């Protein structure tokens, strides 16, 4: 369980989400895992019980990508896609992104940066949404999409986790 808690996710300003994570692999492999469909569909699955029947990637500037997830119990599908805006092999990818069931207005822009040190790769992923409502909406619905538990299950220890997140 050494990786538990190593993912850091924060809100930046009004419209942005940022996260960082370290992987025990050189960055060309991590880059492949983010850009080769046969690899992407093995891990980018969300909560348990979801598969990824569609994963199409046209890895060039202006090229499109399309992802569709499916909940195997009831067939519910969720899709998203966008266009590659910038590609620096093994280092950086900038894409637009938009979910099919757009519960928020406008397109988001995602930036993935990979840096390697001593054989380990740190990824920094930021997503800039068109508005604050869009960003906050994603935070809320992202959770709902998988587990469909109600939003308002309230944690009991107030602020403790917040304090830890510092």
């Amino acid at each position: 369980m050494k990786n538990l808690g190593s993912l850091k996710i924060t809100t930046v300003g009004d419209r942005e989400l940022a996260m960082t994570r370290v992987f025990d692999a050189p960055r060309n492999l991590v880059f492949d895992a983010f850009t080769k469909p046969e690899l992407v569909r093995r891990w980018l699955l969300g909560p348990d019980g979801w598969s990824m029947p569609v994963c199409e990637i046209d890895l060039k500037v202006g090229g499109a990508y399309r992802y569709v997830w499916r909940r195997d119990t009831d067939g519910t599908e969720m899709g998203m896609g966008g266009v590659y805006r910038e590609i620096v092999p093994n280092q950086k990818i900038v894409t637009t992104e938009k979910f099919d069931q757009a519960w928020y207005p406008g397109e988001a822009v995602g930036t993935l940066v990979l840096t390697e040190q001593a054989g380990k790769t740190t990824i920094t992923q930021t997503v800039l949404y068109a508005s604050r409502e869009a960003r906050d909406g994603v935070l809320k619905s992202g959770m709902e999409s998988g587990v469909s538990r109600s939003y308002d299950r309230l944690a009991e220890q107030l602020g403790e986790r917040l304090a830890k997140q510092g």
Partner: protein
Amino acid sequence: MFAALADPTRRAILERLAAGEASVTELAEPFAMSQPAISKHLKVLERAGLISRGRDAQRRPRRVEPQRLAQVTDWLERYRKILEGNFQRLDSLLNELQPEKKKRKNKKR
């Protein structure tokens, strides 16, 4: 609401208030900030529903709204968990893609 939490000073104020209610004057001191500056932050937190005012009309102490705060941290935490689930699968996949590394590690042990 998340914007209210994006600022480190406001998070620190929330942590302070989580320990017990405090007036603007009491908050300004440890943060080495002017009262108007503190008030500005408090206004943002108040608008987000994260804090409210206590009964004492003179001191006007602020206190956290525990349910609201828990809701926000809960959202972030659940979102983080889903992503972490993805990344743990990616950990396994990356291991699988590096058979040489595994062998080296095994030899060392």
